[in-house]
C-alpha cells in the first residue's frame, strides 16, 4: 500500500509528467484568477460601501490584505516544499520552492508599498514602525536571503538544499520574530487598532476581500506553475524528452 502511494508520488513528481500535467492546469488557474480578480476589484473599488471612519482610502485593503496574506502563505509553501525536497529527495519540490521565492517577495513588496500608502491617510506618514509593516519588512529580508543564497551556489542541487534549509530555519524563526516585533511595538507605541482587528467586518466589504484573496491564490498557482515549468525545462535540458520537445517546436 505504502509502496504504491510512494510510486504514485514519484511518478507524478517526475519532471516530465509534471510538465505535461501543469501545462493543462495553468490556463484554468490563470483564467479564473483574472476573472475573480477583476470581479473582486470592481466589487471592492466601486460597489463596496464607504467606510464610516476612513472614507474611501480603506479600499486599499482589497490589495494590501490579500498581498500580506500571500506573502506569509507563500513563505510557508516554500519552506514545506523545501523540506519535502530535502528529506525525500524530490526534485520537483525543490523547483516549486525556488519558483515560489520571487513571487513571495513581490507580494511582500506590494504589501509593504500599499501598507505605507494606506499609512499616509491613517497615520499621517508613509512609514510607521507598525508591528505589521515591520514584520513584513523582515519577511522581505528573509526572502532576499533565500534568493541570494539560491543564486550564489553554483551546483543546482546544493543550491536547492542549502537555500531549502535556510527557508526551514526561517520558518522556525518567523513566530519568534513576529512575537518579538509585536511585543516591541506594543511597548513603544501601543497596538494600532486597525479595522481588521475587530471581528466584524461589513459583509459587503468582506466578500470582495475574500474574492481577492482567492484570486491571489489562483494567480500564485498559475505563476508558480509557469515558473516551475521553466525550471524543469532548464534543469532537464540535457535529457532526452526535453530535446525531443524542443525539436518539435
Amino acid at each position, binding site marked *: 500500500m505504502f509502496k504504491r502511494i510512494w510510486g504514485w508520488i514519484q511518478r507524478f513528481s517526475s519532471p516530465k509528467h509534471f510538465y505535461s500535467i501543469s501545462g493543462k492546469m495553468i490556463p484554468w488557474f490563470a483564467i479564473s484568477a483574472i476573472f475573480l480578480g477583476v470581479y473582486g476589484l470592481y466589487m471592492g473599488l466601486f460597489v463596496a460601501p464607504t467606510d464610516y471612519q476612513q472614507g474611501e482610502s480603506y479600499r486599499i485593503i482589497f490589495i494590501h490584505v490579500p498581498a500580506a496574506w500571500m506573502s506569509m502563505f507563500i513563505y510557508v509553501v516554500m519552506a514545506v516544499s523545501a523540506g519535502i525536497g*530535502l528529506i525525500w529527495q524530490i526534485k520537483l519540490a525543490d523547483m516549486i520552492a525556488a519558483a515560489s521565492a520571487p513571487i513571495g517577495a513581490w507580494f511582500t513588496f506590494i504589501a509593504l508599498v500599499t501598507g505605507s500608502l494606506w499609512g499616509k491617510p491613517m497615520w499621517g506618514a508613509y512609514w510607521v514602525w507598525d508591528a505589521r509593516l515591520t514584520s513584513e519588512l*523582515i519577511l522581505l*529580508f*528573509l526572502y*532576499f*536571503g*533565500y534568493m*541570494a*543564497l539560491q543564486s*550564489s*551556489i553554483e*551546483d543546482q*542541487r*546544493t543550491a536547492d*538544499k*542549502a537555500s531549502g*534549509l*535556510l527557508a*526551514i*530555519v*526561517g520558518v*522556525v*524563526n518567523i513566530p*519568534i*520574530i513576529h*512575537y*518579538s*516585533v509585536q*511585543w*516591541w511595538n506594543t*511597548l513603544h507605541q501601543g497596538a494600532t487598532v486597525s479595522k481588521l482587528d475587530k471581528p466584524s467586518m461589513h459583509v459587503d466589504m468582506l466578500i470582495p476581500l475574500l474574492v481577492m484573496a482567492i484570486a491571489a491564490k489562483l494567480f500564485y498557482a498559475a505563476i508558480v506553475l509557469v515558473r516551475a515549468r521553466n525550471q524543469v525545462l532548464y534543469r532537464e535540458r540535457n535529457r532526452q524528452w526535453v530535446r525531443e520537445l524542443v525539436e518539435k517546436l
Partner: protein
Amino acid sequence: MLKAFYHLLARDLRLAFRSRHELANPLIFFVLVVSLFPLAVTPSADLLMVMAPGVIWVSALLSVLLSLDRLFKQDYEDGSLDQLMLSPNPLVILVLAKVFAHWLLTGLPLVLIAPLLGMFMYVPDEAISTLIFSLLLGTPVLSLVGAIGVSLTVAVNRGGVLLSLIILPLYIPILIFGANAVDVASDGMSVRGQLLFLAAVLALAISLAPLATAVALRITASR
C-alpha cells in the same frame, strides 16, 4: 562523545591562542564601533543614555557576525572539515564544540568588556548587571544561529555579505529583547521577563541550531 567534544574544543582554543593577534580583533571592533557613536552624534549624556542599549547591542551583533568566518572557514579550506564529518562521533556534538569555542573566543570577551562600554555610554549603574546578563544569554545564540549561516555559505566565494544578508534577520529577536532589557533596567524596572525570554531562545537554539548546522555542513560537503 564527551571526549570528542572536549578534544575539539581544546584544539580550537589552542589554535586561537597560537594566533593571538586575531583573537583580539572582534573585541577591538566592538569597542571601536561603540565609541564612534558619541563622535558621530553628540557626547551629551542624555542622548547617549537613550541610545546606549541599542548601540551596544548592535555593535556586539556586528562584531559576532564578522568573527563568524572563524567558525568553519579554515577547517573548510584545509580539509579538516571533511575529517570532522567522517568522525564516528555525532556531527552535532562536534558542531557544539566548535560553536562553544567560538563563543568563548568572541562572545565571552564582549560580555566582559561591556561594563566599560556601558560607562562610556552613561548606562546607569543599576543597568550594568542587566547589560552583562543579557549579553551572556544573547551572544551564545548569535554564535549558534550564525553557525547555520556560515556552514551554508562557507563554500561560496566572497560569502561575507551573503552571510550577513541571511543571518541578520534571524538576529532581530535577540536584538529586540537584549536592548530592551538594558533599556528597561535603566529605568529601574524588573527585566525578569526579557531575560527569561532570552534564556528560552538560548535553550531552543542550543537544541536545534547544531542539528541544522550539521545538516548544512553535509549539504556543503556534498560538492
